[in-house]
């Protein structure tokens, strides 16, 4: 059979191209270009598998994917920071155009207006949705947004105590600890969610809305208590809830952080996602904001255009004195959520929030009627709630797989046999009722 060349289809160089270039460079072989590497360590063998054709690759990845239980094939009731929604086709169609997908960070504004204008839309729509004055162009994810916001609050208030309500997501709490562990001056405290014991020297108080267990709180009073102490209120909000519930700006939040994955991005086993960081618009906030910010300006002909701005906060200019080390962020995911927000719009965001609300409440009403199950928490929830099961949740989840159901998150460290369930627009009535009847059977067989 005809022998194929060693050249990969991604690289155009043929042997004669290489020879011509090496001659122009003035070396005999490509190996000479690596003479500066210590000889004993030059050209090690790589023990990695042989190449696959595109056809074989498709099979291999298809096989790997088939080892997973895929929501859609399975009914899935997981949330807790990553949410499944219907994503309109235009989100991927627009975001995956090469002009967006294969461009770099917009350092050369004259050839990056598409990216810059799209990020300006993201900043605008996030401000409209959260009721805040300013938003940056995105952070790695909601948890790093929170960690950065807490450190930002410490710089603004010149205080060192970061205070987290105990109902903030445990994973987010861990990330705050990771980000602050190198700073001996910073202290992280966890307090009761009602805010009854806020330390007087707090730099900020972080609350989650709805809280990690799905429930909403009236935060107006909390905001004034926090402000009386001279601290900042950071609200970690579920953006999908803002289609129907009050925006944090309306109850006087100083900084809002969120995970925008819920706006048009698939769960993708945890990433890539995009963190939101929005705040008040004063100079004291702007100066301390981490991450990229797009601003409007004019060109030499007086036409409107956009640029990366306030860059003296950033690492490429300020190096060790930067407000953050973030460089490559998640521009494309911010764009996806901007397209999603545009497509959903005023009516769709409300509609989707209501779908989540009604479906979750329908599921809760069914579960409440099953012997052995109960809802330990009172109050208003949005789309997540805790259920107390008659068996350990890990066991319930294991049995649910036989019904082609992926159950909720095990929160038995907080509530005895507690499971955190979530419903969104993609959980059909059929799935919801199937979960309820499976839980009933599992419960009946428990004793």
């Amino acid at each position, binding site marked *: 059979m005809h022998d194929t060349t060693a050249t990969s289809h991604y690289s155009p160089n043929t042997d004669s191209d290489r020879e011509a270039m090496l001659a122009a460079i003035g070396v005999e072989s490509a190996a000479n270009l690596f003479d500066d590497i210590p000889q004993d360590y030059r050209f090690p063998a*790589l023990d990695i598998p042989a190449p696959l054709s595109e056809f074989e690759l498709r099979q291999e990845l298809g096989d790997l994917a088939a080892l997973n239980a895929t*929501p859609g094939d399975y009914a899935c009731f997981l949330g807790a920071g990553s949410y499944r929604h219907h994503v309109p086709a235009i989100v991927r169609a627009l975001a995956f155009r090469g002009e967006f997908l294969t461009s770099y960070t*917009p350092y050369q504004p004259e050839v990056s207006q598409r990216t810059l204008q799209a990020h300006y839309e993201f900043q605008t729509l996030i401000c409209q949705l959260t009721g805040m004055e300013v938003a940056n162009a995105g952070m790695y994810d909601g948890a790093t947004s929170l960690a950065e916001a807490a450190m930002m609050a410490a710089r603004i208030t010149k205080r060192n105590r970061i205070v987290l309500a105990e109902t903030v997501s445990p994973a987010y709490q861990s990330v705050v600890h990771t980000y602050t562990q190198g700073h001996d001056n910073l202290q992280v405290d966890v307090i009761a969610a009602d805010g009854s014991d806020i330390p007087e020297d707090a730099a900020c108080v972080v609350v989650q809305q709805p809280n990690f267990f799905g429930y909403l709180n009236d935060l107006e009073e909390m905001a004034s208590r926090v402000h009386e102490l001279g601290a900042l209120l950071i609200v970690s909000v579920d953006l999908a809830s803002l289609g129907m519930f009050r925006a944090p700006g309306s109850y006087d939040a100083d900084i809002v952080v969120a995970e925008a994955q819920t706006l048009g991005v698939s769960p993708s086993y945890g*990433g890539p996602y995009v963190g939101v960081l929005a705040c008040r618009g004063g100079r004291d906030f702007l100066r301390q904001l981490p991450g990229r910010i797009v601003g409007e300006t004019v060109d030499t002909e007086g036409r409107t255009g956009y640029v990366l701005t306030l860059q003296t906060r950033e690492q490429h200019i300020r190096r060790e004195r930067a407000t953050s080390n973030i460089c*490559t962020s998640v521009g494309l995911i911010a764009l996806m959520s901007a397209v999603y927000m545009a497509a959903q719009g005023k009516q769709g*965001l409300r509609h989707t929030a209501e779908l989540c609300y009604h479906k979750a409440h329908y599921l809760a009403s069914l579960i409440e009627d099953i012997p052995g199950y109960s809802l330990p928490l009172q109050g208003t929830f949005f789309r997540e709630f805790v259920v107390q099961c008659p068996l350990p949740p890990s066991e319930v989840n294991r049995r649910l797989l036989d019904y082609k159901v992926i159950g909720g998150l095990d929160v038995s460290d907080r509530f005895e046999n507690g499971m955190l369930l979530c419903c969104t627009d993609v959980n059909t009535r059929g799935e919801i009722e199937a979960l309820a009847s499976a839980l009933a059977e599992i419960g009946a067989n428990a004793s």
Partner: protein
Amino acid sequence: MTTPERWLEKHNRKLLMDRSAPGRIGASHARLDVPESELPDAALLRDNLDMPEVSESEIVRYFSQLSHYNFSIDHNFYPLGSCTMKYNPKINDEMAALPGLSEIHPFQPEETVQGALKLIWHIQEILAEVVGMAGASVSPKAGAESEFAGMLMARAYHLSRGDDKRKKVLIPDSAHGTNPASAVVAGFHVVSLPTNEQGNTDLAALEAAIGDDLAGFMLTQPSTLGIFDTNLSEVIQIVRDAGGILYGDGANLNALLGKVKLGELGFDVVHSNLHKTFTQPHGGGGPGAGAVLVSERLLPYLPEPHVTRAEDEDGERFSLTTPPQSIGRLGPFQGNFGALVRAYAYIRTLGDVGVSQISEDAVINANYILSQLRGTFDLPQDRHCKHEVVFSAKNLKDNFGVSGKDVCKRLIDSGIHPPTMYFPLPDVVEESLLIEPTETESKETLDQFIEVMKLIAKEAEEDPDLLLNAPHNTPNTRLDEALAARRPVLRWSRD
């Protein structure tokens, strides 16, 4: 005066909120298929949701019309130094979008995501092999987060030995800005080291800066000057003898695949930007993915979760685990999985032979440009480069008053994305132009670029205004960045 072009141009730039008309919708609304529940207390509900109302067709037109406002790898040669703007294979996007990979939830029980965990485990293993390290974590979401994780591990290592004085990190002045910024977020204080005439680490300055407070040294190889440090063996010895951790910024790994393993040279921790070397598309500023790779002595400190493999008579099983002295979580989940799928697909496609060929071609291409533009622009380090080459436009500035920036802006008129400008910083190289062609460009494309650069240098002499006023063919001429910073307008508002 308003011309038709100008009028249309203005329309294209109209923002979504200004395109909004009450009653329009941009997505189909799913039917409510369950009984309605009572709505909660009005005090919790919002009464105004001021979001755009635009139809689907208008949204598509709007975002598509802006297309020609961007340069991208799919459309343009993009020799942006330090960024490795190579072709991003389309198959990788398709693989990452497989429902069995893109729809899975990060909190699914382990037994339901064995395929995903297996993929992560393989990529950990492959990257550790390619860089010559004992282990890897792929939970960082970009290079900077890998640096941060690496420096936290250095900190944890020293502290575990009761060595709490080590607070100082040395970083060459040619390093990327994230290096010092990450070291500071990890709690260190940074001392900058000069680069010597040849572009190597200044050994005398290094000797003078070390002491028993040395936590580590962050070194980029090849450096951002595109060259391999020929003092490297001495540097490693000095840092090791002083008890410091040697950090390798591997953003430039595209020069080294199959050419040298940084781990074998003695680095304790190295990061790789999967969005540079391993083709995760840049997306106009991310998402990326970072791998942080470590030597034996740092293994216990890797971030959580770490994917491990066990095997028994039932077969192999993959789990999310917490290393014994882990620095903790960098994010709520397992990292940028979608980027890991792409990197995995890329490495499997090229395989052992193809992966080594990447660096050979990337380095030939860069040296070819070096050889052809020598004499047209200043060459601060005239020696073989690795995958990128730094020129300086100082000759043009001194002789004709045009800067590196002017050269870059003029390059835009020919449809080529500018190289990285003013990095390395002016105190390392004045008027720097950092050019990285990558291995996915043909000799014909390189020849065009070389020709255009020569023409621009000629124009600088004959008609400098052409450069000073460039670009000429873009939707915007040069933008007023000072105004944007002085009077920040950061969002649409109703006026």
